[in-house]
């Protein structure tokens, strides 16, 4: 159950596939069909391939495996849906891209050494509109 202030994402045609993927409990990233490189969010490929670049970019399912890239540990409550301790941060996926997320299972006190901790995607359905993507610590 979330409050009536829950921050639902603003979906647009560019981002809708990502959010739909989460509702299906899939982490989708954008992949170049020419060279297989992965991106997030929607991007043209960094390499110069034949045009049209944007049509070469397709959302594909990623492994969900990554590492903590950075994080912040909320020890006070700012919002009814995120009681402390709450860990926000950025995950670096094994495919390459980084994206904002929240973490479950990090040590309760902050320490920079938690950067690099192996994590894997978990999906937390909120309601029919949204499934939240989080990353939990696991022994690699």
């Amino acid at each position, binding site marked *: 159950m979330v409050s009536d202030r829950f921050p639902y994402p603003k979906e647009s045609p560019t981002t809708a596939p990502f959010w739909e993927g989460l509702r299906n409990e899939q982490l989708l990233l954008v992949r170049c069909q020419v060279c297989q490189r992965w991106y997030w969010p929607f991007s043209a490929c960094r390499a110069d391939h034949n045009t049209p670049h944007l049509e070469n970019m397709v959302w594909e399912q990623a492994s969900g495996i990554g590492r903590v890239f950075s994080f*912040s540990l909320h020890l006070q409550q700012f919002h009814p849906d995120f009681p402390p301790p709450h860990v926000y941060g950025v995950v670096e996926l094994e495919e390459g891209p980084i994206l904002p997320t929240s973490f479950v299972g990090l040590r309760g006190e902050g320490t920079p050494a938690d950067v690099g901790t192996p994590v894997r995607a978990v999906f937390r359905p909120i309601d029919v509109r949204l499934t939240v993507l989080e990353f939990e610590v696991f022994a690699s």
Partner: protein
Amino acid sequence: MAASKYAIIGCGVTELGHVDQERSVLQLEAEAARLAIEDAGLVRGDIGVAVQMTSDFSGSVRTRHDDSFARVLGLPVNLYMENVGRGGEYATLAIMFGMKALDLGLADYVVAAGARDDWSRSRRVKRLGGRGTGQLHMPKEGAWGKPNGSVTAASFHSLLATRHMSVYGTTHRQLGSVAVAQRAWANMNPQATMYEKRLTIDDYEAAPFIVWPYRIFDFSQQSDGGVAFVLTTADRALGSAHPLFVRGIGFGEQMAEQWWNKENYASLPVATARDAALRQAGIQLTDLDFAQLYDCFTAEVIIQLEDYGWCEKGEGGAFVDEGHTTADGEIPVNTGGGLLSAYHLGNLTGLVEAVTQLRGEAGDRQLPGATIGLVSGHGGEVVSGGMCSIHSSLILSNDQG
């Protein structure tokens, strides 16, 4: 290098900080503009172009209004440009816009005004039972990161501190040394919200974490207030009381390289901004008498000191901790206290302090013989908070060059 062709000849500043006031952002803009025009020795009829400095972050609640300070004041403008800014970078973009308007002869004098009501707005929210608005980064609808609990500015700004600690070994104490150094400057600035509040490193280390690794002293102020300036050509400026010449401006974007290389949490896109500004000004970094570095939080100061080149990459924390940003230091930084201890009006805070120092009006904190200095700007991230920001460099001087 060619002499500067543009100068700021007037600056207007309303009451600032924790002000018990009921004025809207629009009214604060208008008041600041009125003061700037007066300070420039002009009348309203002299203004040909007006620029509003503000910005909407992705999903921010900082609203734009339907009216214009130029209309409110009765400025006979040919052009009113609204919503110029990217996050905390307003001033340099507005100056660039004004420079072009002057080049084209659209105006003899351009006024740019920016205002915020973050403090009084947060107080209104608290009176209604809310926790306050932090830095107003809590959007009405989510964007990337919001459903995961990016609930306040510190949620994502602190990610830079964590990353920098992890990659370069920056310590909590070094973050605290930024807060302490700037508080010392604020203690000499009667306009600073923290003017009468001392801060020692022991105070800092005793404070609880709010959003680890950040404590309250890592956060910037929440402020009400408006700032405006009048820009004109250098030849028109030569007759004015104290022209401040725009010697260089430059910009950098993380979306160019740092985003793709995943350097965007431990580095900022300073290089192209710095190089353009220094080249235009015809000076070296070491010629700068001061640096008003955008300091929404402490880590940004450390990162900018490194990326401008005042110290090696990774050494910014030690640089501040060793006292190099004080009055006697290699580069006095945020000499009025900055956003951390004075007030938060984006990089208008730094602009006002630069103007004050260059005019010799900085009182107890005056840098003797200050002639040329830097104001930086930061923010306006794309993708998600903290992820992909702009950086700006502005060099102002008493000398036309």
